[in-house]
C-alpha cells in the first residue's frame, strides 16, 4: 500500500474532489489554521455538502461534512444565509421600532427575543414596569415556551424518522398560537412587549381559550410526550448519542436545557431573577446524562414546570395598568444596560448602549442557538452521517436566531 498523500489546497486533485463532493465553487485559500486543517483530506476522507436546502436543517444552514466512509470526521457549518443585520437596523431605528424587527430572529419563540431588549431599554430609562404587565409577560412567555418545546418534540421525532408526533404536537402548538393571537393580534411574530409594559390587556377570548385549554392541557401534553418518552425505538436511538459533559458545556458557553441536561442547574429565572419569577414556585429540572435523550426529556420536564407557572400566574394576576407612563419619544440618558432572559433554548440577552438620542448607539443581540450550533462540531466527530441531524436537532437551534 502506498503512503497516504495529503493534498494541499492548491492541489488540482483536491479541487476536483471538492467539486465532486458537491461544493461547486472550489475553496480558494485557507484563511485560518482551523480551515487549513479541515480542508486537508486524509486517506479515504471526502467532503460532503449538506444543505443549504435540506429538509431537516431547521432553516437555511449549510454544513460541510468531512467523512470517512459512513463516519463523520469533522464538520464545518457555514452560516449567514438568513443574516439580516438586525444590530445594524437597530442602530438606525427608534427604540419603539426595534421591537418589531426582533421578532423574526427566533420565529419559534418570538416573545423571548422581544423580552431581553425591552428589559434592557427599561433599565436604560429607569422605568418601573407595572406588576400586571410583568405577570402578563410571564404568562404569555411560558405559553410560548410550551409551544416551542412542543414544536421541538415534533421536529425531533421527524428528524429521527417518526411522522406521528409532529401531528400531535402541532395540534397543541396551534391551540397556544391561537390563544396568543387573541391577545397579541399575530400568530407568529407577536410584537407584543412594549418598553414599559405590554401592548394589550388580556381579553375575553384569550382567557376563555386558556381556561378551556388548561383544563385538559396536562393530559393532552402527556399523551403527546407519551408517544416518544416510552417509545423503545426512539429511546434506544437517542440514548448515549452526542454526549456533552459538564465541563465542556460550560467551556462552550452552552445555556438553557442543553446545559441543564449536562448536570448544571443554571436557569436565569433563578440564577439572576428578573420580572416576577421570584414570586413563582417552580423547579429547575436537571439531568446528568448529557445525551440527546436527556436533552429531550429535560424539555418535556420544563413543559410541566411551565404549566405550573401559568397556573400560578392566573391565580396571582394582579389588577392595574399594563403600561408605565412614558413619553412617545424615548431618549434614555447615556449609559449601558445588559439583560438576559431564560428562553426555551437558553439565554437570550441584549446589551444596549445609549448616547442620549432616540436610537441606541449599539445593540448587541445574543442568541443561544448560535452557540448551540457551534456545539455540533464538537459532538459530531465519530458519529454516523445519519446522526448529524439527530444530534443537531436535539440541541434545538433555530437558524433565524443563529443568523440574526
Amino acid at each position, binding site marked *: 500500500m502506498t503512503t497516504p498523500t495529503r493534498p494541499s489546497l492548491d492541489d488540482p486533485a483536491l479541487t476536483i474532489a471538492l467539486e465532486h463532493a458537491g461544493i461547486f465553487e472550489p475553496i480558494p485559500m485557507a484563511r485560518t489554521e482551523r480551515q487549513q486543517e479541515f480542508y486537508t483530506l486524509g486517506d479515504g476522507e471526502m467532503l460532503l455538502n449538506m444543505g443549504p436546502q435540506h429538509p431537516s436543517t431547521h432553516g437555511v444552514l449549510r454544513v460541510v461534512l468531512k467523512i470517512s466512509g459512513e463516519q463523520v470526521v469533522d464538520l464545518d457549518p457555514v452560516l*449567514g444565509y438568513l443574516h439580516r443585520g438586525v444590530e445594524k437596523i437597530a442602530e*438606525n431605528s427608534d427604540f419603539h421600532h426595534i421591537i418589531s424587527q426582533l421578532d423574526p430572529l427566533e420565529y419559534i419563540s418570538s416573545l423571548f427575543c422581544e423580552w431581553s431588549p425591552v428589559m434592557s431599554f427599561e433599565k436604560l430609562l429607569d422605568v418601573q414596569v407595572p406588576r400586571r404587565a410583568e405577570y402578563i409577560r410571564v404568562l404569555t412567555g411560558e405559553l410560548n415556551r410550551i409551544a416551542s418545546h412542543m414544536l421541538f418534540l415534533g421536529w425531533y421525532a421527524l428528524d429521527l424518522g417518526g411522522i406521528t408526533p409532529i401531528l400531535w404536537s402541532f395540534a397543541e402548538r396551534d391551540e397556544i398560537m391561537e390563544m396568543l393571537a387573541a391577545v397579541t393580534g399575530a400568530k407568529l411574530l407577536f410584537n407584543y412587549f412594549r418598553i414599559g409594559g405590554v401592548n394589550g390587556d388580556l381579553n375575553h377570548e384569550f382567557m376563555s381559550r386558556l381556561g378551556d385549554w388548561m383544563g385538559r392541557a396536562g393530559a393532552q401534553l402527556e399523551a403527546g410526550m407519551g408517544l416518544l418518552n416510552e417509545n423503545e425505538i426512539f429511546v434506544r436511538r437517542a440514548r448515549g448519542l452526542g454526549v456533552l459533559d459538564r465541563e465542556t458545556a460550560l467551556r462552550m*458557553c452552552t445555556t438553557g436545557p442543553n446545559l441543564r441536561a449536562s448536570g448544571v442547574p443554571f436557569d436565569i429565572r433563578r440564577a439572576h431573577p428578573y420580572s416576577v419569577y421570584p414570586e413563582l414556585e417552580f423547579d429547575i429540572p436537571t439531568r446528568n446524562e448529557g445525551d440527546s435523550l436527556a436533552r429531550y426529556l429535560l424539555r418535556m420536564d420544563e413543559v410541566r414546570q411551565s404549566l405550573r407557572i401559568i397556573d400560578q400566574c392566573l391565580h396571582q394576576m394582579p389588577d392595574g395598568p399594563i403600561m408605565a407612563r412614558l413619553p412617545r419619544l424615548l431618549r434614555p440618558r*447615556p449609559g449601558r444596560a445588559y439583560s438576559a432572559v431564560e428562553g426555551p433554548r437558553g439565554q437570550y440577552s441584549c446589551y444596549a*448602549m445609549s448616547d442620549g438620542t432616540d436610537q441606541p448607539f449599539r445593540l*448587541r443581540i*445574543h442568541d443561544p442557538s448560535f452557540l448551540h450550533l457551534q456545539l455540533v462540531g464538537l459532538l459530531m466527530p465519530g458519529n454516523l452521517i445519519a446522526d448529524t441531524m439527530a444530534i443537531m436537532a436535539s440541541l434545538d437551534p433555530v437558524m433565524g436566531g443563529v443568523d440574526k
Partner: protein
Amino acid sequence: MDRAFRALIERTFGDLLTGPVRQRHDETEMRIRPGDVPAVVRTLHDDPALGFEYLGDLAGVDTGTDFQVVYHLWSVVTPDWLRVIADGIPRDQPRIPSITFLWKGAEWMEREAYDMFGLVFEGNRDLRRIYLPDDFVSFPLRKDFHLPDDASRSPGGGVRPMEDAATPADAAAATVRRTATAR
C-alpha cells in the same frame, strides 16, 4: 447593586483597572486594558472567591474613536452581572487577545466581532468571517461604515451623522458628546 462585590473587584484587580468600577441596576462594570484581558479573565474564572465560570456574552463596540470588547460574566458570588470592558483598542491596530483558551465557545462570538468590526482576536484559531461572504471588504457595524442604501438616508430612517462618510467632522463631534456624557 452589590457594594461588597465592587470592593472585592477593586481589591483584587487594583492597578489593572483603568477606570472606576461603576454600578447601576444589577450590573457591575470594570474597565481594563485590552492586553490585560487574558490575565483578568483567568483570575475571574479560577479564583474561588470570584468563580466566574459562565460567559454570558461577548460584544464588540465601536465608540466612534476606538473599539471596545465587552464581556458579560456571571457567578454565584454576586447577584450582579459583571461587565468587563476592554477599552481603547486603537482603530488602526484593532488587536486584542482571544479568550478561547478559557471559553472555547467564545470562538464564534469572536468570529462575529471580527466579521462586524474587524477586531483581530489573537489566539483564535478560526478567525474568519461568519455571516458575511469571505470576499466582503468592509466591516458593517463600524461607525464609519457608509450605508449604501438610500432608504437609510431618508429622514424617517434617521441616519446618524457618524455613519455619514461625507461629514467626518460631525462624526468627531458626536463622539465627543457621547463620551463626555457616558463616561
